């Protein structure tokens, strides 16, 4: 017996067409409820439909709004039935994201039916100091990148006598390639709020802010709905004390993810970071003592309180406890969000969970523009804060981009520098000017105009920027360059010495070749070329050609390829 039908309409689902599927199913299914849920993390399978029956659930992948798919779903047919791969099931451990994609995100009732707000109830019966102690004992470290022990931060705030104390949820998720926080806010907004309210009780905070990236409209919508429900049901009244809750929208500045910059932005100012100390716990939002934690950090809290610090800390390694969410994207088959125990190796995530083919992957980029790359030969590195740091990478917030053999590491480093150089707020000279120089140098190399002196410059200037910058943005901006230099120096050398891009990515170092033996003269490339660089006798004019690959895409016989640029 079908109980109800769930359509995953988180933003990943919607981008794949889940809205149309939901509309179609709601219109055409009359006997069962059709509801919108979030994302279960298997983004590669979107649009994804779950059929809940009396005894179990069936999932259907890549559903289309057609009669055929509808019939298949209602019959719980085999077609498009998604079987979860054993390799992934064995390795994943769903704790924090347990309810994501399984419940209606904006239903308070459903969250409660699944154990929601019981941790808050439990916490409210505890002495605030004991809650702080419990979080300390759990070993939870900040999931926003820094890895600072959450309990210690809370203890600092709890010790303050001030009337007004502030809690901020950092939902700015600036790493361009990470979407775990977005998913938590879209799929289980009440869980994030429950964590914040427990934190408010533990620290004695009187007001909480959630600072969300403006690019996440759906997360903002779901959080706002959840907060309305919280206020209506007085869930924010903690042992008689009412906690104020506000959602604030960011305005598109990466640096605002840094905590002091975020505070300035919340105050309505330019989001410039400032020197620490004083730390926000001493001098934060409008001068009040303030604690900032990441979305995922807060979402861990109900889990800790429910199962107790002892149970929680059984998962993980010595210095890194619990689970971590990663956003898997790039060159692999099963993209999406995964939750894994700390201590799992990178290889297990990339190959077993992500289904990437061994040998097809060159590296992963972890921690986004502040992080570093880890080459395939180090994929047995366990995921914990300290092991990753020792490789010059960082845990970061959880963006994990798989880089295939066909990508250029120099160009990847250039990409990240382009990002950070643009996002620098301009306050520190090393960050403002230094990163720009790094970027120009990398551009020179990718264009084939680099020399050995340029590589030396990168190696010399990089660490100086790290030392000479005030905030985490500048201090970490050279990481992608330094870590690619450390592990892929041969690629830099090839660009500089041989003027060759080994991966055939850098446009200035490649040309397009047509193999006339294979070519069937269908003229598809000639017609497609947007700049008319291919003549009627099917020869490419190197000077006109923009290497846009349009011809390669349309060629029916694969006669066209990119090759290293031939000299004059």
């Amino acid at each position, binding site marked *: 017996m079908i109980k109800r039908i769930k359509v995953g309409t988180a933003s990943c689902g919607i*981008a794949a067409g889940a809205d149309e599927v939901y509309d179609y199913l709601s219109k055409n299914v009359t006997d069962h409820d059709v509801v919108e849920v979030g994302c279960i993390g298997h983004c590669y399978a979107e649009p994804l439909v779950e059929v809940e029956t009396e005894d179990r659930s069936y999932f259907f992948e890549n559903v289309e709004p057609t009669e055929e798919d509808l019939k298949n779903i209602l019959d719980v047919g085999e077609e498009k039935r998604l079987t979860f791969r054993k390799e992934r099931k064995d390795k994943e451990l769903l704790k924090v994201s347990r309810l994501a994609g399984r419940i209606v995100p904006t239903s308070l009732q459903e969250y409660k039916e699944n154990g929601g707000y019981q941790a808050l109830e439990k916490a409210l019966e505890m002495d605030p100091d004991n809650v702080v102690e419990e979080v300390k004992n759990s070993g939870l470290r900040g999931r926003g990148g820094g890895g600072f022990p959450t309990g210690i931060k809370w203890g600092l705030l709890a010790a303050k006598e001030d009337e007004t104390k502030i809690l901020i949820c950092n939902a700015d998720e600036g*790493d361009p*390639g990470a979407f775990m926080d977005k998913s938590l806010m879209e799929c289980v907004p009440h869980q994030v709020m429950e964590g914040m309210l427990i934190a408010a009780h533990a620290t004695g905070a009187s007001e909480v802010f959630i600072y969300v990236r403006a690019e996440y409209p759906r997360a903002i919508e779901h959080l706002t709905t959840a907060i309305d429900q919280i206020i209506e049901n007085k869930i924010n009244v903690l042992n008689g004390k009412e906690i104020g809750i506000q959602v604030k929208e960011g305005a598109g500045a*990466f640096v605002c993810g840094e905590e002091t910059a975020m505070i300035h932005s919340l105050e*309505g100012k330019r989001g410039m970071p400032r020197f620490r100390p004083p730390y926000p716990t001493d001098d934060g939002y409008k001068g009040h003592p303030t604690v900032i934690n990441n979305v995922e950090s807060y979402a861990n809290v109900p889990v800790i309180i429910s199962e107790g610090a002892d149970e929680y800390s059984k998962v993980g390694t010595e210095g890194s406890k619990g689970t971590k969410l990663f956003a898997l994207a790039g060159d692999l088959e099963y993209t999406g969000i995964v939750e894994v125990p700390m201590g799992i190796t990178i290889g297990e995530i990339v190959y077993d969970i992500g289904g990437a083919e061994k040998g097809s992957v060159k590296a992963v980029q972890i921690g986004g523009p502040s992080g570093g790359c880890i080459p395939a030969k180090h994929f047995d590195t366990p995921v914990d804060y300290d092991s990753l740091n020792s490789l010059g990478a960082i845990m970061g917030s959880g963006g994990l981009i798989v880089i295939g053999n066909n990508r250029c590491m120099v160009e990847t480093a250039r990409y990240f520098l382009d990002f950070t150089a643009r996002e620098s707020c301009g306050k520190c000279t090393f960050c403002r000017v230094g990163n720009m120089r790094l970027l120009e140098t990398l551009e020179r190399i990718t264009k084939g105009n680099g020399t050995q002196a340029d590589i030396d410059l990168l190696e010399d200037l990089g660490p100086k920027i790290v030392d000479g910058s005030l905030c985490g943005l500048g201090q970490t901006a050279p990481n992608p360059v330094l870590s690619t230099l450390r592990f892929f120096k041969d690629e830099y050398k090839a660009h500089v010495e041989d003027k060759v891009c080994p991966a055939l990515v850098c446009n200035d170092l490649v040309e397009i070749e047509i193999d006339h033996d294979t070519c069937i003269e269908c003229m598809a490339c000639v017609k497609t070329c947007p700049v008319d660089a291919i003549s009627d006798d099917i020869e490419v004019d190197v000077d006109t050609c923009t290497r846009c690959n349009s011809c390669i895409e349309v060629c029916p016989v694969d006669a066209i390829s990119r090759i290293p640029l031939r000299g004059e």
Partner: protein
Amino acid sequence: MPVATYLKEIDKDSSNLIKALQTVQKHEGFISDENLKELAEYFSMPPVEVEGVVSFYAQFKRSKPGQFIISVCDGTACHIKGSDLVKNWITEETGIESGETDDEGVFSVETVACLGCCSLAPVMAVNGKVHGNLSRKKVQKTLRQYREEAHND
């Protein structure tokens, strides 16, 4: 329209400036010189300070955008999956590059970092609606549909 009409519910505390700017932009599409002056008055602060905030944040626009704003994602996942090509395809189709608005006022193109749909890379959003797994054909088809919609209005 004078901005004060939208701002009724916003407290005159200067910490609400960003929210006020967002509200104005939502209604007007951009922040005009006029709006900027009015906002400064509303919050009793010098216009330069408002301009300082506006220029700091990428979200705020100082000129009128087209009817459809194409946001090309150049986040990490999209970048390695070919966002540069997507930009080329969009330019072929619309004749404009990132940061520009076409003469008819139909399209504006901007580059953004990560729309949070990385698993469908490369992606772009048009007025907030995300289109994933882009190919040249899909870009052409999508933009032509929007163009038609614009002509029908």
